[in-house]
């Protein structure tokens, strides 16, 4: 495999890049239980983007793991999870924001850094704005849904060094926020770096 990109995304930082059709994106959870918030856009038309509902509906399940086809809002397959060393990942919980932090934890968290800030800052480099942010993927985040419908972010099931790999069906613009949240267990209360490796087709 020819490596196009091999970077370590620092704790709390964003990243973006194109994964070419046929290429791969590997995400390595270096420190363990580090939520990696992620959005995908069709590179040739960013109005078409990842859709959590389409992805869930076509596979009939809410968890993402090996074999999951990540679809756009038109139903088009964008990428497939080809390897997952953890077992399941979330796409219900969305991204943390300064605004939702005020509801979840109180107004003292209003000025803490958040994933939406990362998405907005990194997306702006590609001409994307707030309306382009939709329900995202949270790699390595554990969100069980109970029979009552109760759901929440609980302690993770990942570990240091575990990884997952996606293969792209299209040229895909990838937005990543290495989640800075410190008010719930999604990062083990200690945000850590993650490694990204983009492989050529």
């Amino acid at each position, binding site marked *: 495999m020819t490596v196009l990109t091999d970077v370590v995304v620092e704790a709390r930082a964003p990243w973006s890049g194109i994964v070419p059709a046929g290429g791969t994106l590997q995400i390595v959870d270096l420190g363990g239980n580090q939520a990696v918030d992620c959005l995908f856009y069709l590179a040739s038309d960013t109005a078409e983007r990842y859709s959590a509902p389409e992805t869930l509906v076509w596979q*009939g399940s809410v968890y993402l793991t090996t074999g999951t086809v990540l679809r756009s809002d038109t139903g088009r397959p964008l990428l497939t999870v080809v390897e997952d060393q953890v077992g399941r990942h979330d796409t219900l919980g969305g991204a943390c924001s300064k605004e939702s932090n005020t509801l979840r934890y*109180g107004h003292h968290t209003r000025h803490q850094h958040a994933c939406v800030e990362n998405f907005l800052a990194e997306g702006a480099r590609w001409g994307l704005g707030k309306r382009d942010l939709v329900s995202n993927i949270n790699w390595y985040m554990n969100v069980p*849904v109970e029979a009552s419908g109760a*759901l929440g972010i609980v302690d993770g099931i990942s570990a240091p060094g575990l990884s997952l790999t996606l293969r792209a069906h299209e040229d895909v613009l990838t937005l990543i926020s290495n989640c800075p949240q410190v008010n719930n267990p999604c990062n083990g209360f200690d945000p850590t770096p993650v490694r990204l490796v983009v492989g050529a087709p």
Partner: protein
Amino acid sequence: MNESITAAPAAGTATTDGARAHARAQAGAVVEHMPTLPASVYSDAPSGVDPSALVWAERVAGGGYTHRVVRRGTTVRLTDVDGDACAHLLVYRAGEPWERLNVADTVKVQWNAYLGVGQLLLSDQGRVLASILTDTGGHHDTLCGTSSRMRNEHRYGSGQAQGPSPAGRELFVLAAAKHGLGPADIQPGISFFKGVRVEPDTGDLTWVGAAPTPSHIELRAELDLLVLIANTAHPVDPRPEWSCSTLEILAWPGNPTPPDRWPATASPEAARAFANNAEDLAARGPGAREAS
């Protein structure tokens, strides 16, 4: 979908006079699926709803859509008239559509994936767009969004808006365009009157379908809202044939929820969401607050 009752032209339509007479003769027709204007003359208002107060009365066929801007405090009542409607909703702050329903925040902040009485539809700005005041059915969905054209072509052979099994997204594209919004403004939404549950161990989606008897829900707008509604089959409806029946929409004005009243008092998260509404409106000045 086409409910034309146009008779063959009596005087002919070869001239503009004839064509105008023919066009004008159609006025006053009543079909099953249409808006009633003014809404106050709607004849089927349920008991407890004062028809003279109505500001929106409309029946939408399966496969149809509608949209409206409603003032803060307005109650919007959606009724599954014949037991097989599925009302897909997108909600935006009127005039500021960059603030909109955030389904992920709605389920995450309230610690529950299933919608019911007292739950709030939250915006991505930490505010309450609408609260659910009444729910007689309990079969709704926050997870599956609406159908795509590709999905409906796969399931039914067709998904175009004008076809026999319109995809919700195709309908939303049209509704959104009427308010200056494009496909990039269409985000995951919610749906009422068809339920889906998650199997706790596997995460598999289980279809529970419609409530046992025709039901209705009432939403209160807690900010001025743009509401887009598509009435079409749920994307995981397992029936091989596309099916969706009449949705009735009624709305009447009222007051938004005061911060010391249910459902603002239903949870600490709700209290802070309503506090965020109040803070925003207070800074905008008296004009923004006069409805309360």
